[in-house]
């Protein structure tokens, strides 16, 4: 993700505090009402002079750290520079003084930094859990980053590989191969599904988890121990607003108590939360012969593309405990099904460390 601050044209509706250059710069002042002189009453020469000042000064001014925008405000008849803080205001003032610009030709306004709003479907570097991944002709979600025997990796669903079961070196892109054609990771571990094993119904192929691991490319940066957080739970919002921190992982539980409130963040329906209503259920997967043992059902929203999402329990504030990987749900999207970490660590090779 590139949270970048950009110089943009000023929005008239911005709530800002104007700072007159002659005032004590240490104290924000009350808003100054700028006389709204109609542009038509200003001579073409005056307008041309202001535009020339704007063109000649704005590159230097916007190089001052903490500047937000530069504007030739034709209505006010002044240059207007938006800054984040007093230090930046002083820097702008000094830059303009060096160029001999009169204080009556500009204003400096304190304003909030402008940030790009990222969504779970945008490009994130370093990567984090909950964002979109793409491979062959499918889209899934990144479950969680982890070191597996020291190798930077991510875990997602087993069916989020080119071939479900078996390790064939699926290449992953983030957010998609069309947006960024450099693979971020390669499938490294997807155990085979086993037929005729103990407890596996005739005609089915079985595992304890729908999970796989991909190893990061040396060029791809990743953040272990964080999950993208969106700006609302059960709203469907995909706009990110901070992160959850993975402080622990539950590698043991197979039977989650009914009513346990769990969460997931995925690229299609964002952050959803709800109670466990079925626990350690052996589950057939529609459209396949796959049979997954001891899966957990959660009454929370899901949709296509959320496969692979990490499932977690909030332990306090934004601290969470990782508990599994989401892989499926009802056709009406009313509940999701996940593989507990207990089944994942049982099947994937190596020691999985997913905490911060």
């Amino acid at each position, binding site marked *: 993700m590139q949270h970048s601050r950009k110089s943009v044209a000023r929005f008239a509706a911005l709530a800002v505090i104007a700072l007159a250059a002659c005032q004590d710069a240490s104290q924000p002042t009350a808003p100054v009402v700028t006389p709204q002189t109609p542009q038509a009453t200003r001579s073409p020469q005056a307008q041309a002079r202001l535009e020339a000042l704007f063109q000649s000064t704005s590159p230097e001014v916007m190089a001052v750290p903490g500047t937000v925008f530069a504007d030739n405000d034709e209505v006010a008849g002044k240059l207007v520079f938006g800054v984040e803080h007093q230090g930046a205001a002083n820097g702008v003032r000094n830059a303009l003084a060096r160029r001999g610009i009169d204080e009556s030709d500009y204003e400096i306004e304190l304003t909030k930094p402008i940030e790009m709003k990222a969504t779970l479907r945008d490009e994130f570097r370093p990567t984090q859990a909950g964002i979109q991944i793409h491979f062959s*002709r499918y889209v899934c979600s990144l479950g969680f980053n982890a070191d597996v025997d020291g190798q930077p990796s991510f875990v997602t669903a087993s069916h989020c590989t080119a071939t479900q079961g078996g390790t064939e070196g699926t290449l992953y892109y983030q957010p998609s191969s069309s947006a960024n054609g450099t693979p971020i990771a390669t499938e490294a571990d997807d155990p085979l599904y086993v037929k005729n094993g103990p407890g596996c119904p005739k005609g089915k192929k079985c595992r304890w988890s729908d999970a796989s691991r991909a190893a990061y490319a040396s060029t791809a940066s990743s953040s272990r121990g964080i999950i993208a957080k969106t700006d609302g739970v059960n709203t469907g919002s995909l706009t990110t607003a901070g992160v959850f921190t993975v402080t622990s992982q539950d590698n043991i539980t197979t039977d989650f108590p009914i009513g346990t409130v769990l969460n997931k963040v995925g690229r299609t329906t964002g952050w959803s939360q709800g109670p466990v209503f079925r626990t350690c259920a052996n589950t057939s*997967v529609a459209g396949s012969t796959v049979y997954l043992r001891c899966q957990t059902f959660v009454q929370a929203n899901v949709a296509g593309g959320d496969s692979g999402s990490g499932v977690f329990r909030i332990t306090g504030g934004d601290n969470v405990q990782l508990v599994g990987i989401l892989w499926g749900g009802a*056709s009406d999207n009313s509940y999701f099904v996940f593989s507990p970490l207990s089944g994942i660590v049982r099947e994937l090779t190596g020691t999985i460390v997913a905490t911060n």
Partner: protein
Amino acid sequence: MHPDSLRLELDVATEARVGSVVSIALRVRNVGDRPIDLYLRGRTVAFDVIVRRDSGEVVWRRLENAIIPAILRIETLAPNATLELRADWSLATTTGATVTPGTYAVQGVLLTEDAELRTVPVSLHVSGG
């Protein structure tokens, strides 16, 4: 996706006898002049078929209680290209009981990333075996 450029139709027999199996084809056609990327639910495309009595009561759903992988499959449909999805209905209700003779409405539903796209219901008359 451009739903206005998509035409969904359900191909199903208009008559059937109790004890037979009805073949159903859901076809999705790009009637526009540009390729369309369809984001479809499932590794194998998940689509539903809903059968209702005249009263509106649902007697069978292909995806009733099914648990579907929450993955999106991207299918690019060229202009005039058609994606065909096939299913069979054994004239049984969701609970497994044989349906009674009568007239039923059959509707296809395509699960996409953004919405469920539904066909116009097709009438099927079931006669006694």
